[in-house]
């Protein structure tokens, strides 16, 4: 009981995730800045931002729904942290696992997007409502490729459990190379889930001010930003567990370092992606995802089925 509680709340649960999320945010912002020929923030900037936001007043618009307004950031953070306990990190067993937990993890990662929509909707501000609608529209575009991409390695492994996938690839190391197309698809779809350029349409500052979070300030905004940071780490950890499942048999310390390395590698890829492209328009994004991303995910699915049928009867 004590072990479970400390795992969930401290390591590798809430506290570890929050700090690791802030480290990942720093890596992302520093790389983004250096690629743009700028200096970039110091290492403690995300922590400083969080503390500053906690110290500010929460201003809630008079017409907004107060209880919902206050509850949504907490719900978002909770969902994201909960999904982390099912992801195998540096061993082939996650904290908790059961057959079908890959679906649960993906659905838990959808909950923050829904809270973003509700947050914008209940703000009753025009810009927030527009941002909320865009969040949902974007969800319909990237969710299917993301699902299909993550399920392809599961098909090869023959199990719906993330720990089961990790165990399978631990025993058959080289099969992860066949999933590289799915990896590319999921990287692009993850960029959409995390609402970063080129898919930061719900938060397009030059069009709809703050998007979903226009009316949020103070501690509630701090929690939402923490959710986004943790979502970055959880998404990267999910991708690394499913697509980069090597080295999982190493002893604890080396395995932990390898895990950090893999997650930060994915964060670096996402940061470079953010630097080199402009923002899409929502209709272009939907068209791109359904015309190119979903078919690519389908191709990966076909490859996985072929491998499963031919090589692993």
């Amino acid at each position: 009981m004590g072990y479970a509680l400390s795992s969930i709340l401290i390591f590798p649960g809430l506290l570890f995730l929050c700090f690791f999320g802030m480290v990942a945010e720093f890596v992302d912002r520093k790389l983004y800045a250096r690629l743009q020929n700028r200096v970039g923030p110091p290492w403690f900037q995300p922590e400083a931002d969080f503390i500053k936001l906690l110290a500010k007043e929460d201003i809630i618009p008079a017409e907004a729904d107060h209880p919902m307004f206050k509850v949504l950031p907490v719900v978002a953070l909770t969902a994201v942290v909960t999904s982390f306990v099912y992801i195998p990190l540096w061993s082939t067993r996650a904290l908790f696992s059961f057959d079908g937990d890959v679906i649960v993890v993906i659905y838990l990662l959808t909950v923050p997007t829904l809270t973003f929509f509700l947050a914008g909707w209940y703000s009753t501000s025009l810009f927030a409502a527009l941002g909320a609608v865009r969040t949902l529209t974007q969800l319909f575009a990237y969710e299917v490729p993301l699902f299909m991409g993550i399920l392809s390695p599961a098909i090869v492994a023959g199990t719906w459990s993330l720990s089961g996938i990790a165990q399978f690839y631990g025993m058959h190391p080289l099969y992860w190379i066949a999933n590289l197309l799915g990896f590319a698809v999921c990287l692009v779809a993850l960029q959409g889930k995390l609402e970063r350029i080129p898919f930061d349409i719900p938060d397009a500052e030059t069009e709809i001010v703050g998007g979903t979070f226009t009316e949020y300030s103070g501690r509630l905004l701090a929690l939402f930003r923490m959710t986004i940071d943790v979502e970055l780490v959880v998404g990267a950890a999910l991708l690394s567990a499913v697509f980069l499942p090597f080295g999982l048999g190493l002893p604890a310390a080396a395995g932990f370092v390898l895990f950090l390395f893999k997650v930060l590698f994915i964060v670096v890829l996402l940061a470079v992606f953010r630097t080199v492209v402009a923002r899409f328009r929502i209709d272009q994004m939907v068209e791109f995802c359904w015309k190119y991303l979903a078919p690519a995910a389908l191709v990966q699915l076909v490859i996985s089925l072929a491998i499963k049928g031919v090589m692993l009867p």
Partner: protein
Amino acid sequence: MANVTIPIGPQHPALKEPERFDLTIAGERIVRLNSKLGYNHRGIEKACEQRTYINCLYLIERICGICSHSHATAFVQCVEEVAGLQVPKRALYIRTLIGELERMHSHLLWLGIAGHEIGFDTLLMYAWRDREVVLDLLAALTGNRVNYGINTIGGIRRDVSPEEVVEILKGVDILEERTKYYIQLASEDMTLAERLVSVGSLSTADAARLGAVGPVARASNVDQDVRRDDPYAAYNELDFKVITDTHCDVYGRVLVRVGELMESCKIIRQLLKNLPEGPIAVKAPRKIPVGEAVTRYEAPRGEDLHYVRGNGTEMPERVKVRAPTLANVQAVAKMLENNYLADFPIVLAATDPCFSCTDRVIVTRESDSGNAGVMDWKALRAYGIEWYKKNRGLDCSRIKLRSR
């Protein structure tokens, strides 16, 4: 969602200066644009009537930060024409030099803003880093990064030394390299093309009909450029191309401005090679004789019109400024037809708006009776006092104006 009206402005991250654009949208499509200008009106034309010509020059220069030299030169050209002054050749060349450097500054700034409006912050950072080269050159030549103060009635105030000429040529070489990179970027980058092509279309006929000027008109294949059509300063002795483009959309406007950057590099090199020797100013009288003059100047944003009427005293009788953005902003509503909400920032930014230049009071029209007329100073003040009493409950009638 039913039709919603979003107020873009007066404060909005998309706008660098306050103006009000009420966009009516159905979903994400723009249905109608209603623009209300005037938030940046500062009474400059009236203020000019109460200052000497040299004081006016300082004021006119500060109408805008990035077109400051354009306004100052246009004003000074007007006054020199009224006074019948013959400005020395060297002064004309150096005025043109600063004008072209300002054009490069403005276009690089614009490139960055365009990148920012479409979410491409990397382009913003790169363009503004290169803009620092121009700003350093201008600071070395004139002492200021904006608002150069190089003009005076009858010529210029500071000379260019041979060492500075060498510096300028080095800077221009760097900028030409970087501009070639931006041209390549504009033609090859996929996401840039997605956001810019077929956005904000303005056909050639519409551009001419709505009176668009500058790069906006030239990108719609309207071949007009004041530097060639009505040469001023040193332009009649220079060899340069007028860049037009047939795309008629935002992408065309990008190409025109980047092309003009290359042309400016060429022009600056010609100017420095043929810089004539001689004095830099003639003495101008304090009292400018009776007369009126109109000048046109090709500012980075388009045709800038100035009118000055002198009445024999040391203060002008009337100064009128018609900035290029006033001509271009009428075309924005037409450009936005059939576009998306997400296109509004880039379409507006592609006209390179400078609302500080634009806001002058022209004509008032009573909305119910339809009578058009010009209010004089006393009537305007009385109207303002009454409006605030009625709508805001404030009584300003006892504030005394400072009279000269």
